[in-house]
């Protein structure tokens, strides 16, 4: 009875959420385009899996193993997504309005979980084609298909419930609200543990790369695989086993979800109240006001006073926002992964270098985006100050460029210390990073201006960077050609000193090593110059237009 009335309230709240989300969307076309890119990426992944599945030889359980692997990978991804959404809605974004209203903890948890339903279609898009291919290649009976769909559905709900359970665990230990980046870190660690722990427990599965043998007993402990086991059992006419796994899934969902809802009813309010408390106390902590000792150094830079002030303020902010730096550290983790395991993923030598650079510099694009977006409503301070539009943009660009450049060079240094590549390659890379990062930050700039949301709406609360509108993901499309071009140039430059890297291109490589290096530098700078000019022109135009619109309408969006 009460569950029903709670559910009614949840539906009611969800309607308002959707309404606000619709109002938050600026351009429907861009929104669809961004959605389309995501769906296409998942579609491509699904197609790839189907292709691999279809080409596997029959027998040996190879297909069943792949099926399980996809359930496992997809499940880990879904778990990650849901942890992100649910944790975000409960532990990151404040929602006092729900907490002060006479809603039960159960209703609050249900409301927050209701949001997660969005992740479901992506998971289905990935898994269902694979399941169908599996059925076709294994010559399964017709009854296989409805049961397989049921298995997919049960797996999804089981993962939902597990996410809720993990959230409860987290709420028990967490002392204050966390930032989005910490959240991303925790979620990805949880998702990675799904892969890692069984491998540690079960030494026999330690195969090469992704060729894990998932038939072992330890893997049976993972609910994500139960669905796949159930499907395989149906295909191989083992009804008893299928029913067993199905019941296991149901039981798991019911127990966990029931437990979560009961717990929420009892403890959710005071746990979340505690988070807010902790947050408040943490805010009170004193910091040392920066004294700006090296003022003279600053004066030397030929910048306008406004530019200098904004740039410095942004740096102080970055220093006090460790979460933004955690975002960069993520890429450093990948760096370790690539560097510490030579030949990982089949890459070595110069390729490894190029991948390393992309992995390290691409995430720094965020600095450029947040630099403008995090101004939020304070952007009017800059509008009322005697600063030209160019002053502000230069500050924002310098902030992104200098920070990203420093970060990339630092990463390169770590890489060099571990791998010891040829000296000329290192020098060339160190030089080429400058134009690359400069161009990358300039091309980010117009997007940052265009998509900065100076007033955060309910919908944007769910984005990683609060003050950036959803369409921002489009800017990756602009980065892609730049990175491909610069990577090609770099490979061309280091090729003579790193023979054997590109056998296919070997016939094209003539001339001395020095000539290669010089040509690469010239090309890299030229490409960057063109990109910078375009990026700058567009950014200035966009910024002027944005200021004009803000002055016309009085609204910051």
């Amino acid at each position, binding site marked *: 009875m009460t569950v029903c009335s709670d559910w009614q309230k949840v539906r009611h709240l969800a309607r308002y959420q959707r309404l606000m989300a619709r109002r938050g969307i600026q351009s429907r076309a861009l929104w669809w385009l961004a959605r389309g890119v995501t769906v296409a990426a998942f579609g491509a992944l699904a197609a790839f899996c189907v292709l691999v599945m279809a080409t596997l030889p029959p027998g040996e359980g190879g297909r069943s193993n792949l099926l399980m692997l996809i359930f496992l990978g997809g499940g880990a991804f879904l778990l990650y997504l849901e942890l992100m959404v649910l944790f975000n809605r409960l532990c990151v974004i404040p929602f006092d309005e729900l907490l002060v209203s006479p809603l039960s903890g159960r209703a609050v948890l249900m409301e927050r979980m209701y949001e997660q339903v969005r992740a479901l279609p992506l998971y289905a898009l990935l898994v269902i084609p694979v399941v169908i291919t599996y059925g076709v290649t294994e010559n399964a009976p017709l009854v296989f298909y409805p049961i397989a769909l049921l298995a997919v559905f049960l797996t999804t709900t089981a993962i939902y419930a597990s996410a809720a359970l993990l959230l409860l665990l987290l709420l028990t230990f967490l002392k204050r609200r966390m930032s989005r980046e910490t959240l991303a870190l925790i979620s990805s660690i949880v998702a990675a543990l799904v892969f890692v722990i069984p491998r540690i427990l079960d030494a026999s599965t330690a195969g090469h790369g992704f060729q894990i043998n998932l038939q072992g007993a330890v893997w049976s402990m993972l609910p994500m695989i139960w669905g796949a086991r159930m499907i395989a059992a149906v295909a191989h006419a083992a009804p008893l086993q299928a029913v067993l796994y199905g019941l296991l899934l149901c039981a798991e969902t019911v127990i966990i979800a029931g437990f979560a809802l009961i717990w929420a009813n009892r403890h959710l309010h005071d746990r979340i109240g505690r988070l807010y408390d902790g947050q408040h106390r943490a*805010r*009170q*902590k*004193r*910091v*040392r*006001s*920066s004294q*700006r000792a090296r003022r003279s150094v600053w004066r030397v830079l030929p910048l306008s*006073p*406004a530019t*200098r*002030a*904004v740039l*410095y*303020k942004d740096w*102080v*902010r970055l220093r*006090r*926002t460790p979460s933004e730096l955690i975002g960069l550290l993520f890429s450093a983790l990948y760096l370790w992964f690539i560097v510490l395991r030579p030949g990982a993923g089949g890459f070595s030598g110069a390729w490894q270098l190029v991948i390393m650079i992309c992995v390290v510099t691409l995430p720094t694009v965020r600095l450029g985006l947040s630099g403008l977006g995090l101004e939020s*409503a*304070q952007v*009017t*301070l*800059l*509008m*009322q*100050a*005697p*600063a*030209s539009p160019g002053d502000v943009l230069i500050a924002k660009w310098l902030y992104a460029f200098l920070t990203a450049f420093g970060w990339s060079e630092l990463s390169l240094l770590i890489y060099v210390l571990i791998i010891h590549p040829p000296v000329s390659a290192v020098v060339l890379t160190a030089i080429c990073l400058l134009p690359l990062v400069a161009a990358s930050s300039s091309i980010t700039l117009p997007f940052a201006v265009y998509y900065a949301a100076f007033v955060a709406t309910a919908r944007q609360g769910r984005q990683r960077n609060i003050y950036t509108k959803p369409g921002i993901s489009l800017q990756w499309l602009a980065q892609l050609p730049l990175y491909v071009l610069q990577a090609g140039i770099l490979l061309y430059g280091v090729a003579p000193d790193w023979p054997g890297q590109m056998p296919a291109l070997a016939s094209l490589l003539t001339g001395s090593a020095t000539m290669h290096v010089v040509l690469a530098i010239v090309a890299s700078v030229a490409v960057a110059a063109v990109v910078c000019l375009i990026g700058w022109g567009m950014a200035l135009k966009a910024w002027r237009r944005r200021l*004009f619109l*803000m*002055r*016309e*309408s*009085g609204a910051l969006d």
Partner: protein
Amino acid sequence: MLRADGLTKRFGDKEAVCDVSLTLKAGELFGFLGPNGAGKTTTIRMLAGLLTPTRGEVRIGNHDLERAPREAKKLLGYLPDKPLVYEKLTGREYIRFMMELYDMPSDVLDEAESYLHAFALDSAADDLISGYSHGMKQKIALIGQLTHRPRVLLLDEPTVGLDPKGARTLRETLRALCEQGVAVLISTHLLPVAEMMCDRIGIMVSGRMIASGTVVELQSRYHTDASLEDLFLQLTDATEGEPAG
């Protein structure tokens, strides 16, 4: 010091401000009154260069706000109704930021210290602004505007959220600034305060300035010796009661 002629602002087909003209002489404290939604904030934002007027022009000192925005804005201080501050800076850093943004010499820092002391913020000045209360943010934003020594100061409901002592300090500070020749415009709903401190008063209703002058002038114009509060209610009721047009 400040001259606005025929300011009009339309939002879509809604006219928020209609043909408002006002002059602020150096050293004058002008009180801006009006019911909610009258268009006070909109007018002040136009004076501060944050909104483009649909018609009309603003001159600050000898500079046209539209044509020479940089020169005009150098003379201008504006405190919005919601304090705008950078949460990740400390109070002192924020003041320093404002000082550098307006390219002021560093001796204004001493002046800022005395303001911090006067507003009882000196103990919190090295804390992050994110931990400040609403009134403290209001104060630090105000000090930030004072540090660049504006010649024209526009304050939108600055007394909201200030404690009694802060409100008195604000009044004394504004008086002192006026004596130095700064022109101050302050919008408020506190009529006794306005009556006590302002040299001249403008009353705005539904986007129009229906009356302006000293309190005594207004009283004699409407043949009454009622307090400003009664006069205000009488005027606004009469105007709002009229059929639109």
